[in-house]
């Protein structure tokens, strides 16, 4: 039984086919990474799953329900959390209050929201900075803050767009080790990543490779990186033969 099932979806923007007949499924508790060069359609795919855009054809099912035409806030309500590539915290609020914003989805009580937010912040090892204002925090903190806010909505599936982009490698790997523990919480993860393969190799159960909106490879991380079509997408056809 799949948690998320994407069946043959396509999305056009004018003459550009951003997503072209993509199908895949995510099982509960699985960590899937979508990799692909800049412009491959990763963010578009995330936007389709979270209802920002609606597919021109094909369908998306979540927990057995057709979600192809949901709005973004409805997607959050049924348990799809997401983070954005560009971090946008509420700068005047503290780190804790930022995360409470997510927790308010499941409760209107301040105390309960605070409790849930604290739990998430502990998990992400951010309790030291909980009561400081979000303004002036560096990118590593803000990236984790994005994840914390999404986790506080208690999702069943979380989509992390370019989750380690711009982070120093040591911090990227630290964060990846934390993400690896998300299945303990019963949360499936779909990460989108351009090229930080160290993270993908460590965390992903499964990798999906997109290129120009088309799914070109799918499978376990260590198999996928050796496929000629993947190498071609990243390095150009010249390198395909060298790799083989």
């Amino acid at each position, binding site marked *: 039984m799949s948690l998320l099932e994407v069946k043959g979806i396509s999305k056009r923007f004018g003459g550009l086919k951003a997503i072209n007949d993509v199908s895949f499924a995510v099982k509960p508790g699985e960590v899937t990474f979508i990799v692909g060069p800049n412009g491959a359609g990763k963010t578009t795919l995330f936007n389709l799953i*979270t209802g920002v855009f609606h597919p021109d054809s094909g369908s998306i099912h979540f927990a057995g329900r057709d979600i192809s035409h949901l709005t973004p806030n409805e997607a959050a309500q049924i348990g799809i959390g997401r983070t954005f590539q560009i971090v946008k915290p509420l700068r005047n609020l503290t780190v804790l209050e930022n995360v409470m914003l997510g927790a*308010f989805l499941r409760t209107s009580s301040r105390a309960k929201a605070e409790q849930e937010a604290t739990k998430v912040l502990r998990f992400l*090892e951010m309790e*030291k*900075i909980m009561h400081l204002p979000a303004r002036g925090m560096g990118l590593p903190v803000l990236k984790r803050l994005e994840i914390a806010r999404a986790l506080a909505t208690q999702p069943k599936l979380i989509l992390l767009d370019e989750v380690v982009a711009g982070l120093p490698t040591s911090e990227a790997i630290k964060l990846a080790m934390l993400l690896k523990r998300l299945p303990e919480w019963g949360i499936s993860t779909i990460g989108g990543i351009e090229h930080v393969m160290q993270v993908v190799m460590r965390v992903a159960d499964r990798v999906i490779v997109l290129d120009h909106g088309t799914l070109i490879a799918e499978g376990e991380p260590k198999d996928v990186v050796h496929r000629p079509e993947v190498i071609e997408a990243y390095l150009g056809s010249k390198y395909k033969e060298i790799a083989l």
Partner: protein
Amino acid sequence: MKNWQALVAAVFLFAALFVPLLVPTDYILQILFRVFLFAALGLAWNLVGGYAGQLSLGHAAYFGVGAYGLALFSKLGISPWISVFFGIVLAVICAAMIGTISFRLRGPYFALCTIAFAEVLRLVAKNLPNVTGGDVGAQVPALFTHSATRSFYWAGVLLTAFAFALTAWIERSRFGYYLMAIREDQDTALSVGVNAARCKLWALLISAAITGFGGALYASMFLFIVPDQVLAMDISTEIAIVAMLGGAGTLLGPLLGSVILESSAEIFKTVFKEAHLLIYGVLIVVVVLFMPEGVVGTLTSKLGRFKKAPLAPFAAPAPVAAQEETSRAALNE
């Protein structure tokens, strides 16, 4: 950090209770009525323009509808206070219609749309002489017959206290968090399940109700209104400037903004005579240039800067580092 703002406002409102005892002149009380009226209007505007970040430049619409509501319903023979209530209901209905349409737009387009609606209402009021009296104006019944100036002063203080308490409560509630999230980034707000359209509309409805009541008070104080007075762009901008000068999106901002703007307007009028508008303009320019977040907003961010983030923000446990070494070794092979 927010508590000091509530404290200052509480002290201020408490002090307001003794003013009629100390300064018995009607002139001072009239000015203070205006200060409190615009503080309340600024607080109401602040919910939409400050917390939710939707720059409304058409709040004269709700102000004017509240004012005309009182005038027109009482002309039908309904008692003044019930007419005030009907006026508020009418302002809220207007807000529902204006909000539903204009909230589809974002940023400057939203602001333009709100101006347009207020202007349409002003022109309608001007051109329906049979209903509104047109440019000739409409008579407004007195809400207070006994010691009127003093009573209006109290009504202004009460309305401000109410608007302030409501804002303080909203600021700490889920609704307040949602409004701030919409202001910072609507897409992020949607991603945590916020129904942005509904939240913005609720904020506008609450805001319109208070603004409509303020309009009725103002109208009743003058006993006579014309469209170019209560539905004018001047009212819209004055409400917005009061809140922005003090600090949009802060609890204390509109109150402080009204004290600064309304009292200085009056002082400049007596001190500088004909040049008062010039000085008034310079004051606004100075605040906008040097305190772009408003007086309260700039103060709080200056104070907040003293709190620095620690150099090592995360409490990294040992096992992760150990794991990292082994996995890095595995990768290098």
